C-alpha cells in the first residue's frame, strides 16, 4: 500500500468531496479513510488514499489534484502519509 493524505481547507461549497473523490476514482486510487469538519466556518477535509495502482505518474497525480485548488476555490495539499506517522507516532 502507498498511502497519500489529501487535505482540503477553504470556504465550504457544494461538491468538494464529490469532485476530489471522482478524480481519485478516475485514476484508480482507493479511498481508505475520509473525515471532514467545519472549524470557524472553514471547511477542513482529510482523505487517505492508496495510490499504489494509479494510472498516471505520482507527480502528475499530485499536480492535477493541486491544480483543482483554483477551480474549486479551496487549498488542496497532497502529502505521503509517512510524514504524519513520523510526527505523531512513536
Amino acid at each position: 500500500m502507498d498511502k497519500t493524505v489529501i487535505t482540503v481547507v477553504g470556504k465550504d461549497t457544494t461538491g468538494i468531496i464529490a469532485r476530489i473523490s471522482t478524480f481519485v476514482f478516475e485514476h484508480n486510487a482507493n479511498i481508505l479513510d475520509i473525515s471532514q469538519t467545519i472549524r470557524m466556518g472553514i471547511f477542513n477535509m482529510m482523505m487517505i488514499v492508496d495510490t499504489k495502482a494509479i494510472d498516471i505518474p505520482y507527480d502528475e497525480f499530485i499536480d492535477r489534484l493541486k491544480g483543482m485548488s483554483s477551480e474549486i476555490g479551496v487549498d488542496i495539499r497532497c502529502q505521503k502519509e509517512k510524514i504524519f506517522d513520523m510526527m505523531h507516532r512513536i
Partner: protein
Amino acid sequence: MINIEEVFETTNMISHDNLDVRTVTMGISLFDCISTDLDTTCENIRQKLLRCAGKLASTADAIAREFGVPIINKRISITPISLIGASCCHTPEDYVKICITLDRTAKELGVNFLGGFSAIVSKGITPSDRLLMESLPEALAVTDNVCASVNVGSTKNGINMDAVKLMGEIIKKTAYRTRDNDCMGCAKLVVLCNAPDDNPFMAGAFLGVTQPDVVINVGVSGPGVVKTAIEKCKGKSFQVLCDTIKKTAFKITRVGQMVAQEAAKRLGVQFGIIDLSLAPTPAIGDSVADIIEGMGIEKCGAPGTTAALALLNDQVKKGGVMASSYVGGLSGAFIPVSEDAGMIAAAECGALTIEKLEAMTCVCSVGLDMIAIPGKTSAATISGIIADEAAIGMVNQKTTAVRILPVEGKDVGDSIELGGLLGRAPVMPVSRYGCEEFISRGGSIPAPIHSFKN
C-alpha cells in the same frame, strides 16, 4: 490510522508556522582529490563533487514535493581545504583558484552554499593553513556560494592566540575587500572554537577527518512552530512550558529524521546526523527572539533572556534526542542577529547588546552570529571579541563562533541589507576600550585543567 486533528496540526505547522527542513547537506570527503599539481587538484575536486552531488538538489526537491514539507537549502560540506591544498598550493592565489573551482561547481550543482574552505588551527598554523587564511579576503570577494571557517581553539588544545590575532586582521581585510557589497565576505566567514565535524549549517560546515566518504546530514528548524506552541501555555508553570517545547521539538525533529532517511536512501549514501537546531529566518513569525519574548521577557536582551534561552536550548535537545537515533552538529537554538526579525528589533531599540549576546552564547548552540559592528573597529578589538567567545567555548566544552561584519564606512545607527536568509543587520556598538597589548602577546592560551580527563 492517522486522524484529522493530527493531519491538520502538521499542515498548520507547515503553512502557518514556517515549519521547514532548513538544510540537507551532503558531506563529501576530498582526500582522494589531492595531487601535487594545482590544476589537477581542482579538476579532481570538480569531478568528485559532480559525481557525488549531481542528484542532491533534484532529490531534495522531490522529497519536499512528495511529503509536502519545504526543504529550504541544499548544501555541500567538504574536507577542510587547507588539508587538500597542502601539496599543490604555494601562494594565497592558489587557494583563491580552488575557491573559484568550488564556487563554479556549487553553482553548476544548484546548491545554495558549499562549506569547508576551512583551516583547523587550534594548536598551530601549518604553512598551508596560513596560505588559506591569507587567501580569504580575495577568495570570499570573488566567489558567491563558498563559505569559509577557521577553528582557532578547542577544549583539548586551548586557544591559538596567533590565529585569533590573524583572524581579526583577516576579517577587517575581508570587510574592506567586499565594502561595496555590504561586506558580504564576512557573512561567509566564521571563526570557531570546538567546531563539530558534522555540522550541516553554514557558514561553519565542513566535513571533518573523522567522517565517511559521503554522508547526508540534515538541519531541522522551526522557531515559528515552537512560538505558536508556547503561546498556548501563557501564564502556566515552567514545567508546562518545558513539556510543550520538548514535545514540539520532538515533532519537528521527526520530520528532519524522515527527510534525512529518505535522502540518504535515494542518494545511496550513509545517513550521518540530524542537527536539532532552531534556526530563525528574517520572515515574521520565524524568530528565536519571539520565542524568548513569548516566554514572558518584555524584549529579547532584557534580564531573564539568558535563562529563557538556556531553557529553550535544553528542551529542544531533550525532545530532539528522543526523535532521532543520531544527533550532532551544533544542535540548539541559533541567535544570528541579522537573520531574526525579533533580534533586529531588540538590537535597534537598545535592548540587545553585544555583551548580552555574549552571555547568551554561553547557553545556546553557537556564538556571536551575523552582527554588524562599526567599520572603524580595530582588528585587535575584533580579535578580542573572538578570544572571549573562544574562551567560553573552550572552558564550557561547547562550540562557540564569531561571524561579525565590521562594515566599512558605517557606524551605530546605520544598518546593512544582506538580503535573503542573511537578512538585515543594524550596526551595533562595540566597547571603545582596547585590548591591543593582550592580543599582541603571541603564542596560545593553554587548555583548561578539566580537559585532562584520561
